[in-house]
């Protein structure tokens, strides 16, 4: 395990370290808007996208319920923490609420997995979509727990060592730590026995079963792992916004997450973060190009273009470009 971690860290290419340093330095030239609304927000959306990428990229399972796992974690924070709605709001300490929220999101994702892995492919998309929409309608109609249409507002942010975590700089670094941590975990898991088994279930579930593995257990565990990532993003989201409502887990947002992951690329864990950055930039600056009202048309068209022309997303595009720039590559590994 430790040897594996060391191997993963030492295997990181220098370009990644440069990127990390640039990301750490990013808030200093940038203003608060860019630090939080572009930088940190992209990382949160990227984390939810990463949750989907783990399932879709490694497991071949497309789940549209990952945003719902994030949203439920956010609701847990509102319910057990402090909110200004006079509904529930137990005011528990952050050290309990945050892990509890992540646990609930993880459990939800695992339960979705338990139902969804009975099917595969397009059936799974439909079932997870149906679950996501059902939870959305339930949250909107239930006033005892979810406070219905209004949801929760005025959720306080944690103060760690006297530092308000909602302030731009601390929040940016909190998100960065979350993003980098889960990117590293994903990279590590990819090469771990579990990760290999998961990729094997994607390529040939029958053979994996014949080897004596439980395909169901592997897939459900992948859902749980993806749930941890999504729920953490949900906690970050509620720290950023201070509110959560059924709109947070609406089906349009769930589709946005799918767009982000697919546009970024499902082949590599960094893809969803690229997709999220592109999405957030488009969301904020598309107004300058076209009417803000028609933002969804732009997003939908971009999504269609990517699916039609580059099924591997922006990462695939990058790959194609770099292949074209240096067409003759010296093979580093022999093929046999």
């Amino acid at each position, binding site marked *: 395990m430790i040897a594996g971690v060391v191997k993963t860290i030492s295997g990181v290419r220098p370009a990644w370290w440069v990127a990390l340093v640039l990301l750490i330095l990013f808030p200093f030239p940038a203003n608060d808007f860019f630090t939080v609304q572009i930088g940190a927000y992209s990382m949160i959306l990227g984390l939810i996208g990463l949750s989907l990428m783990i399932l879709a990229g490694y497991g071949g399972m497309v789940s549209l319920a990952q945003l719902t796992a994030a949203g439920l974690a956010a609701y847990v924070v509102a319910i057990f923490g402090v909110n200004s709605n006079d509904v529930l709001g137990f005011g528990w300490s952050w050290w309990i609420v945050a892990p509890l929220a992540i646990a609930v999101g993880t459990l939800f994702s695992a339960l979705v997995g338990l139902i969804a892995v*009975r099917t595969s*492919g397009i*059936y799974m998309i439909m079932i997870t979509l149906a679950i996501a*929409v059902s939870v959305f309608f339930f949250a909107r109609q239930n006033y005892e727990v979810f406070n219905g249409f209004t949801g929760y507002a005025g959720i306080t942010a944690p103060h760690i060592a006297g530092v308000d975590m909602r302030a731009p700089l601390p929040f940016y670094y909190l998100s960065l730590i979350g993003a980098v941590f889960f990117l590293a975990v994903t990279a590590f898991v990819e090469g771990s026995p579990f990760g290999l088994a998961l990729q094997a279930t994607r390529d040939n579930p029958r053979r994996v079963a014949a080897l004596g593995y439980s395909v169901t257990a592997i897939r459900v565990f992948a859902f749980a792992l993806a749930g941890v990532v999504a729920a953490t993003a949900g906690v970050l989201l509620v720290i950023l916004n201070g509110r959560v409502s059924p709109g947070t887990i609406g089906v349009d947002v769930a589709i946005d997450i799918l767009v982000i992951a697919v546009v970024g690329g499902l082949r590599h864990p960094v893809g969803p973060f690229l997709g999220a950055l592109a999405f957030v930039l488009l969301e904020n600056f598309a107004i300058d190009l076209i009417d803000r009202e028609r933002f969804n*048309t732009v997003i939908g068209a971009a*999504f*269609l273009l990517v699916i039609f022309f580059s099924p591997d997303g922006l990462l695939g595009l990058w790959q194609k470009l770099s292949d074209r720039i240096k067409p003759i590559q010296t093979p580093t590994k022999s093929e046999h």
Partner: protein
Amino acid sequence: MALVAAAILLWLVFAVWPDWLIDAIGRKKTFVTTLFNGLTLAGLYFLVASGFTLIFGLMRNVNLAHGSLYLLGGYIGYEVSTRSGSWILGVVVAFVALAVIGAVLQVVVFRRMQGDDLRQTLVTIGISIIAADLMLAAWGGTTYQFTPPDALFGAVELPIISVVKASGAMVMIKYPFYRLFVLGIAIVVGVGLWILLNRTRIGMMIRAGVDDREMLAATGVNVDLVFVLVFAIGAGLAGLAGVIGGTALSIAPGEDVRYLLASLVVVIVGGMGSISGAAIGALLIGLAEQFGLAYFPTYGVVLTFLIMIVVLAVRPQGIMGK
């Protein structure tokens, strides 16, 4: 078992309820109205889901833009019927327009990526995002309501006794005629589809295509043409349902997602690709939704969801699925 259940249901509908029953589950009027509302909704769901399941059954195309077709059908029907003053014309134009759009979709989009399920699904999601946004641009966020033709307007007295007053006068249950009409249309469409699939040459080709596409092509049938036809029928039915449903309820942004979800749940429960499965699924979901709404309002959605989970746990391929 089924006979006993049917007998109990018939008794519940036609008998005058004794006091203990009213104490237990409330007034008979609520029960019968809810039952009819559930049946009407089931009819509507069947209209939308039958097209969805037909397309999937033959082509394995999951058309997640199906809800958008429903909503677009509703808007087109609204425009035509308010401008021409003829509701029937609205229904016909919506069916034809959506059938044409469906055929174009099949030729332009689905034929290009036949066999690539995931890409098709993603493309239809993209299309539904754009369609929802463009419809919002064209028709705004307002809720539209149709007026059905005068012949279908108003309420009719059902031959069902609600209560017998102390004076001995019988109070009959009244129900909007239009909603019964929706149920009638659903039954007509269902029977029509059954005849089309089981009693005609085209239907034979479609059924053969569902079982083995390559063999059908090998016998000299132009499979591409059959595909376009089925897609047109499926999309046209969604458009038709848009007008029928928009008249029974209303048309507004967001309805596309609602009916997409309904179609998904109905075909998941009933079994993908089966028309009779769509009918059974629509009945279950429509009744569950309305009874949930009437008897435990907050948890109506959960009831629908529970049905789906139970079916998935027992029969992952759906009740009538192969």
